[in-house]
């Protein structure tokens, strides 16, 4: 199971809602259909206003972004229950979101789909890091190391939910632990 992730971060501020992560007009795409899943990736975070976020998470014409790690402030993923939000991020190549706090349904959907690790940071990393900064996230050591400065920041433990994401989501986890039958 991969527990160390290295790469550039994409930084957003507080209260990024699901409309900004995946705007409503793209919800016609059905995530369980392969091509539509990839399309969702191409639109990840495209609802962020350009004025505030001139660097884009996924470049025009690409289906994946170059940021495996998203850094956010408070209440990341607030708003609707659309699972398209963590899925779009995952489809675009994001593996970890480091936020000061998450909205409940987004957190739950990230875990249930196994698309990404929603990690809470003890400090407000969105004030410290800039888009493009290289970091290493170690889920076992619960640490984020900034390449440029060597500074280390702490993460809060994911607790029980770590093993659900490790397993690849709710269904795999439920099978592994015998909550539902193997063939379903």
């Amino acid at each position, binding site marked *: 199971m991969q527990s160390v992730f290295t790469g550039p971060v994409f930084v957003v501020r507080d*209260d990024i*809602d699901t409309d900004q992560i995946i705007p*409503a007009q793209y919800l016609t795409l059905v995530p*369980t259909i392969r091509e539509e899943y990839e399309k969702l990736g191409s639109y990840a975070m495209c*609802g962020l206003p350009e004025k505030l976020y001139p660097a884009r998470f996924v470049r025009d014409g690409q289906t994946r972004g170059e940021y495996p790690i998203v850094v956010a402030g408070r209440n990341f993923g607030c708003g609707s*229950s659309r699972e398209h939000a963590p899925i779009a991020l995952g489809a675009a190549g994001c593996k970890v979101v480091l936020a000061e706090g998450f*909205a*409940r349904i987004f957190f739950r959907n990230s875990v249930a789909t196994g698309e990404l690790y929603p990690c809470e940071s003890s400090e407000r990393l969105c004030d410290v890091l800039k888009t493009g900064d290289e970091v290493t996230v170690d889920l076992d050591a619960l640490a984020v190391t900034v390449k440029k400065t060597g500074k280390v920041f702490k993460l809060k433990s994911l607790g029980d939910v770590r093993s659900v994401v490790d397993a690849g989501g709710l*269904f795999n986890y439920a099978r592994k632990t015998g909550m539902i039958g193997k*063939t379903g």
Partner: protein
Amino acid sequence: MTLTEKLLARAASKKRVQAGDNVWVQADILMTHDVCGPGTIGVFKREFGKTAKVWDRNKVVIIPDHYIFTADSMSNRNVDILRDFVKEQGITYFYDVIDDPNGHWVFDPTKGAMKRQHGSHYAGVCHAALPQKGHTRPGEILFGTDSHTCMAGAFNEFATGIGNTDAGFVMGTGKLLLKVPETMHFRLEGKLQPGVMAKDIILHSIGEIGFDGATYRAMQFDGPGVASLSIDDRMTIANMAIEAGGKNAIFEFDAQTQAFVDYRCKLNGTNPSYEPVTRDKREKFSYELVLDLSKLEPTVACHPNPGQRKLARELNAIKLDRAYIGSCTGGKTSDFIEFARILRGKRVIIDTFGVPATPEIVHDLQTARWGQQTVWEILVAAGVKMTENAGCAACLGGPVDTFGRMNAPLKCISATNRNFPGRMGHKDSQVFLASPATVAASALTGKITDPREYLPA
């Protein structure tokens, strides 16, 4: 235990649960719609197999409502995916857009957006349709693939929004693993003043705790003030619990709840039996607030989120381009009645759109008479663009041809529930959330306006 703990304990077949416990709960209803239904069905089939059957065909309720009146072919296709699944599974409660079970739904833009295009089974916005069609019962557990599922907490049940994967799991097993939330207590006292509405109560409360103030928690509303609130009012309040990050909202059961639920279950022939939960003497709350309803004033949540609380009278310098009344929160019959009371005999001076939440509400407004005119006619005469195609419409933007969608960076005052950037369309538009009364008064002046100045004598 709190009301929420009692509901979850019962659904988990346990004597007691407390905040923080993880429990498997048995669902009573799973609701899904056209936006999340196809994905949920996809997860269900992928995980349980192509020939799998849903856990209970009478308990999966499917309500297309979001992207219906649009020529977008993907949206139309998604309604067809729902219909095929319903046929295959023999699902009892499907409120299809069209009457022909073998047909295909296609919206015809040449007929325009205002004239009714749906058939006789269509039920409109899911959260308003669920109670109207007798699917909300006290004491039950309702899961829905939509964050405003919490609206049904008005009926003394546990109702919460979940994602497609969780919903796929419920579809196959009828169960879901939940963490019992802490409960925040909102005790309501007194009565609202004229011109102040239930929407103001919830906008005020969200402003008080911050719009992530109820994250992972239950919001319990009780106290003597609740008796003066109609069922519609309670629904408005419960609807926006999610706007404070809440997991669910919950009201006590009373004679009004009983009358409503009994009538609705009978009307649609749904299960008429239920067992409400009542308050214990000892409840553990993580937060308490006493709200004197008589002190509240018309309230507005400013761009860009529902926690940006201001009083309407503080904002009269803000000029508007548009007004919108609709959605599960603000598109009920009582909402349009308050709206019409202020607009009657006057003219709006900005573009004003009206989208009733359900076809039944359209019917109410087209038949309720005030003097010579119906409420519908009063609104049309006041210059409101009223559509008969009930649904979510521009509440969440939707495809570009959606009725009322903001396709330019406009400023809009809206009776809906969300105002994040881009929510109603254009990324750089601004949405101000307010009660139907405040939206009406603002539509008359083109600025954010305290409706108390425009109350009829």
